[in-house]
């Protein structure tokens, strides 16, 4: 919390300066949550489907080593080149080496949260490679020089007027025009030229099938396909947890993914890449970047089941009112808050605290990750590793002492309800944040304990 220049709470404060806009952000995402509910109710056995997905992923994580080997062997047999990257830096270097070997310095990229996690764009830019993101939302945040604020809806934080302004500046659309239809049309033309002129493409991977060595990429726009089918080189990047055992398991996951993400019955395109085209090079980069470490943390392992649908963000009452950028990590929202501390506990110590532990995330998760329980557990781990702010640690110790001793508790209460000082809502109270927008309850003349002593004396033990 004190370790980063701006922690979640501070960034959320900034986001909340414009309350009307927070309301707009909240309503927009809640609308998507409602769409998700509506379509989930249309599927008989929705909850059984979640069970199945969760159990398949649990099984995969418990048998990941053989599945990775099986996937690799099949992918190679299919004519795909397979690379392994221990961390973000190695991943980025592999991409650069492939491009350099083909003397390519321009790239079109479809959405991949892994490449966001690895900061691939910055790395490539530093090495003279021009990258254009082809997902409309990602292109918008790229033009705005911002990271995505949501893994499925990268520019959900942006007003159309701001996008109109950006497009006017970069794509020459008429000034003051913010019609989504017109802006999308402009992006279509701009990106079509990009697709037609770029010789290499990077895509993410939604699912990689061990049984067949194929991988599946889901988009609504068709941008991954436009990139991949026109480029001479297709580099597909995946975290090692994206493996599923068999092709038929896709039936379970494709039923859940888009319904959970946006309330659609399925994404427009669910493309199964098994072999490269004739004269095309196809590469897969299998990335660890902390995943094997998370696999070893029993309490946090099942965060690796995530299929990146974003449902936990849409439902999270905190995310909706703090915005994705407040999480200062590539994967935002509740799932990001349990993934990030695994990579850097100190830098992301604030994230597991950016939650009321309401549990809604856990309930919408299509693979049943116990997100809110993990947020609670990360808090314990972070504190025990010494990353809690000192002031908080001291006040907690005082509170624990008071509350574990009836004498101290009652003494505190009698001394003009001094217990108030240690009550949850006044801990950390340098500026007494409770009072900023809320009043305190009226303090009664007697506590219940005192009332009870007077009125139920005979019952006293």
């Amino acid at each position: 919390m004190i370790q980063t220049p701006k922690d979640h709470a501070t960034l959320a404060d900034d986001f909340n300066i414009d309350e009307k806009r927070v309301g707009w952000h909240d309503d927009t995402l809640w609308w998507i949550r409602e769409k998700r509910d509506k379509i989930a109710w249309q599927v008989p056995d929705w909850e059984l489907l979640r069970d199945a997905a969760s159990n398949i992923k649990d099984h995969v994580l418990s048998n990941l080593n053989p599945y990775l080997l099986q996937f690799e062997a099949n992918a190679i047999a299919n004519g795909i080149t397979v690379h392994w990257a221990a961390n973000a830096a190695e991943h980025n270097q592999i991409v650069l080496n492939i491009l350099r070997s083909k003397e390519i310095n321009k790239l079109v990229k479809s959405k991949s949260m892994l490449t966001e996690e690895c900061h691939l764009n910055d790395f490539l830019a530093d090495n003279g490679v021009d990258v254009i993101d082809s997902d409309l939302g990602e292109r918008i945040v790229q033009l705005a020089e911002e990271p995505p604020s949501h893994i499925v809806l990268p520019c959900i934080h942006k007003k159309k007027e701001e996008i109109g302004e950006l497009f006017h500046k970069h794509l020459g659309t008429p000034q003051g025009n913010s019609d989504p239809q017109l802006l999308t049309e402009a992006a279509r033309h701009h990106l079509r030229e990009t697709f037609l002129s770029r010789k290499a493409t990077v895509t993410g991977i939604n699912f990689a099938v061990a049984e067949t060595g194929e991988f599946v990429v889901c988009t609504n726009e068709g941008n991954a396909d436009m990139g991949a089918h026109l480029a001479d080189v297709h580099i597909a990047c995946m975290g090692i947890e994206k493996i599923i055992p068999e092709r038929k398991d896709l039936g379970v996951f494709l039923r859940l993914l888009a319904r959970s993400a946006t309330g659609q019955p399925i994404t427009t395109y669910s493309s199964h890449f098994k072999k490269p085209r004739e004269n095309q090079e196809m590469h897969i980069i299998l990335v660890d970047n902390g995943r094997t470490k998370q696999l070893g943390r029993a309490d946090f392992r099942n965060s690796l089941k995530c299929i990146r649908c974003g449902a936990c963000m849409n439902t999270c009452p905190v995310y909706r009112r703090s915005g994705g950028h407040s999480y200062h990590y590539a994967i935002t929202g509740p799932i990001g808050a349990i993934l990030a501390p695994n990579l850097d506990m100190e830098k992301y110590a604030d994230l597991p605290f950016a939650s009321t532990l309401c549990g809604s995330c856990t309930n919408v998760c299509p693979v049943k990750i116990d997100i809110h329980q993990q947020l609670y557990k990360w808090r314990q781990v972070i504190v025990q590793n010494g990353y809690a702010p000192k002031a908080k640690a001291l006040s907690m110790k005082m509170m624990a002492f008071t509350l574990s001793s009836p004498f101290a508790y009652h003494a505190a209460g009698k001394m003009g309800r001094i217990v108030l000082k240690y009550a949850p809502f006044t801990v950390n109270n340098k500026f007494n944040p409770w009072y900023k927008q809320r009043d305190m309850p009226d303090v009664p003349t007697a506590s219940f304990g005192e009332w009870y002593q007077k009125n139920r004396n005979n019952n006293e033990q």
Partner: protein
Amino acid sequence: MIIPHRVYNYLSNLGTPKILMNIKMKVGLFIPCYVDQFYPNAAIATLQLLEKMGLDVSYPPNQTCCGQPMANSGFEHLTAGCNKLFVQNFKQFDYIVAPSGSCVLHIKEHIHTSNHEDDKNISNKIYELTEFLTDVLKVTTLSANFPYKVGLHQSCHGQRGLHLAQMSELVAAPYSKPQRLLNMVQNLEMINLKRKDECCGFGGTFCVAEEAVSAKMGKDRVADHENNGAEYITGVDLSCLMHLEGILKRKNSKTKVIHIAEILNAS
């Protein structure tokens, strides 16, 4: 000694008058620290309501807190004292009842002492008030009267933790234990909410650590109740209600908060 549920249910099914069975049911009243200090009326209502049911209710005077404020802040390791004290205070009862879903959930999930049998025993016999009324006592009628428009705030820990009510995220048949009880209250009119189970934003230390988001969440919840004409916002957790009350008072709203025990005990 302890009347297990199945024995109770068996007797109940035979039509045994409650009073005959309840005479032996010893209930320990657990009043969370902030309720004790700020909302004694909710605690009194809880006590009176349980007494009306013919139960032998007592309040161990040495109780303090469930330890949740520390644990949710990452300091579960500091709650050993609270846990030990809790077991000492409540071990001897057949049931432990508290007017708080959040504190009950915390005890249920996180009580850890050196004696695991004790922990299990406590976990199994602790109940939030409304689930105790509907599941153990199987209350079907109440003599309460509350002639107001009421909005029900589904506190998350009670709802998603203790499953006091069905959750809007799940594709599953609806039910609500607090609602079932409120339906027994005469002249009470329930209002419908736009978002029926969204978190209020209290969240323990979250309410100050993340003041901006917490307050915005609270304001949005309050607005939903106000827009739908609630004269009272009720719920099973005073922590949530205290937060909502703070916002209502600041804006001089006519809407008030009231713990569900006070409604169920109102005459």
